[in-house]
């Protein structure tokens, strides 16, 4: 009996050990380039480790049973007539329930830290006057509004391109340029079918929906050029619907902006 328990403890610690080792050493995700990314990756790591423990544990249990309890040639008759075990069944109902609840609360916390739980009810008066609704995407705003000094950009998506309108500079660009470490607010609208705005390095995605503008806020943290990918089937060239986001130092961004901006037209 003692022997058996020792083996069990050994195996369990091995499963945990392997899972933690893999969880901390195998990186399945692309570079982290926004404030969201490290928060996301924290959740990913936890889910990955719990998942590995359950998967490796179950696989060992199945394969072990197949070997240990396989019918030898000389055996006849049946296995033990074990029909159930109430306390065991209660245990394996309650433990998963607790795990699931904890994961749920934790991911709520993560989502809140990403800013996703904020209701975007700014412009409320203006909105109620027409049928248009603005749905909230991930948001980093600490208050409920898109701060005035944020960089705000209007994104329009169409088969099969993204266009980025910089209202302050009064110009439209096919490439998204943003300064590093600054909050960006985007209002996105589609001209035809549903598209989606996805930057894998930022861990954010939001559908761009015709007739219902969506808001997406993010803060890039690393200078570089990253792909913007359309992630919603939008027609034959869906796979080719890509653009780039260029995250650059403030000064480079300013230079680019000034080169492109059109003079104000005063009426």
């Amino acid at each position, binding site marked *: 009996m003692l022997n058996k328990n020792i083996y069990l403890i050994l195996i369990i610690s091995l499963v945990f050990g392997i899972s933690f080792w893999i969880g901390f050493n195998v990186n399945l995700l692309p570079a982290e380039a926004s404030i969201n990314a490290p928060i996301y990756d924290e959740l990913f790591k936890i889910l990955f480790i719990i998942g590995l423990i359950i998967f490796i544990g179950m696989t060992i249990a199945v394969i072990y049973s197949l070997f240990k309890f396989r019918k030898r040639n000389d055996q006849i008759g049946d296995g033990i007539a074990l029909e159930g075990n109430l306390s065991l069944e209660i245990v394996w109902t309650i433990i998963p329930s607790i795990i699931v609840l904890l994961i749920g609360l934790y991911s709520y916390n993560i989502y809140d830290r990403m800013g996703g739980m904020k209701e975007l009810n700014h412009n409320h008066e203006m909105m109620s006057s027409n049928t248009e609704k603005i749905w909230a995407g991930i948001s980093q705003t600490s208050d409920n509004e898109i701060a005035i000094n944020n960089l705000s950009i209007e994104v329009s998506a169409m088969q099969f391109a993204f266009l980025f309108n910089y209202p302050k500079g009064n110009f439209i660009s096919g490439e998204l340029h943003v300064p590093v470490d600054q909050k960006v607010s985007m209002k996105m609208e589609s001209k035809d079918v549903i598209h989606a705005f996805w930057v894998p390095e930022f861990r954010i*995605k939001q559908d761009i929906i015709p007739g219902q503008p969506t808001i997406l806020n993010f803060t890039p943290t690393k200078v570089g050029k990253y792909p913007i990918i359309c992630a919603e089937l939008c027609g034959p060239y869906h796979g080719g619907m890509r653009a780039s986001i260029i995250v650059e130092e403030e000064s480079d961004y300013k230079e680019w902006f000034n080169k492109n901006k059109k003079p104000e037209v005063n009426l």
Partner: protein
Amino acid sequence: MTISIDPQKTNNESLQPKGWLRYFSFSLDHKVIGIQYLVCGFLFYLIGGTLASAIRIELASPMSDFMPRDVYNQVLTLHGTIMIFLWIVPVVNGAFGNYLIPFYVGARDMAFPRLNAVAFWLIPPSGLMLVASYFVDGAAQAGWTAYPPLSITTPQSGQIIWILSVLLLGGSSIFGGINFIATIIKLRRPGLKLMKLPMYCWAMLGTSLLVVLSTPVLAGTLILLSFDIIANTGFFNPVLGGNVVVYQHLFWFYSHPAVYIMVLPAFGLVSEILPVHARKPLFGYTTMVFSIMGIVVLGLVVWAHHMFTSGTPPWMRLFFTIATAFIAVPTGIKFFNWVATLWGGKISINSAMLFSCGFIINFVFGGITGVALAQVPFDIHVHDTYFVVAHFHYIVYGGTVFIIFSSIYHWFPKVTGKMLKEKLGILHFIITFIGFNLCFAPQHWLGLNGMPRRVAEYDPQFQFVNQISSLGALLMAMSTIPFLINVYLSVRNGKDAGDNPWNALTPEWLTSSPPPVENWEGEAPLVEEPYGYGKEITEGK
């Protein structure tokens, strides 16, 4: 009103064609209808599998060079639609349900044999129509989800045929669902208690409830969609003031339960197979029943987890996260119970057992990624990417298709009176298991790193991993060869099976193989202990 069935009239043998021809006629025998569903489903599986191979060939290189881009989208749409509506749903419900349920409740046929036959005969024409739409003006190309406005703006005839076909198939499964509920509740032989029914009956009861509650919503939605296409109405068309997100809510109100319509029957089937080959009672019968019902209830309230990026309000995201994650609890219970059923048994390692154990391992994997996907922040990054493609193929292929094969190895002797060859069966399992994991495991990485789904072309950095995946798909395609050879050889000159080659206790084994038209020569046997392995009665009967 009483339902009266006169099997003498409905199944009058002298009026029915004999031999093979039986299967091409409007038969009312539940066993014939079951086989019709299975064979028809398998033919569509071969078509759907060919399309899958075409997709994987296209994806072996980053450019769109194997077929034009719009054809790629048609092939993709057809593949998904065929696999769901013409292979998995008809087979795990229609085929096995029709064959087994009357035996399990001790009846000589289903409650409504004619409705049953109609339900089957809706399938081949609507399936052929769907496939034929490719040759008319191009098939539908908006994906199996047919999201407007894309489905409104792509070429119309293909999309309309797609809607018509899915409507007919939905009708077929509603007819089937009503029939299963009526049969299980009303046709149980006297003395057979509900809590003594084989587990597959419970699974089919739960599934049929889902079918009857959710399929009409899909039908209504698709009818509205067809109005938008043909009659220029504006339910979902944003140009005319329609709301595209409402379509998604309605669509997923059916299509999320649809995944349980595909896996619950598989849960039922594996619960029949494991006890027989492990020679042990099914562990935790009562918790198994409650977990099925728990899955049914939770399955109906989680649909919006498919819409976390569609602009749903935050409270809704929270609710659907928690509800979805909780499905892991009843599902987990079932998996622990199956492993406990194996524990301490005298397990025969045969094809049926291997496919069932493969199912457990694959499904646990798919279930874990499912719990992860339920978490909004996690889902936002991987939604509509290859991570999701990998997840659901682990469920539908690694889960349900593995169980379909396991069931075929298990019940083939009953249906044909011949044994399948074990060596070929085990070969089939090994190739399928390796091919499957090689094909779909790497796709998790693809999704996490930036490959969206439903694309004919992709970033060249993903080429190597895609080639591994395509190699796996090739192996999977090849794995059907030993299976088909096995069926052919065994039907022609397989070993005689006898009535009960596995020494099983459920009622279908207590009659001849193949069974007579009315299932039993005399009175239907009353089986009190369908899982009474290791008890006295095993010796007696």
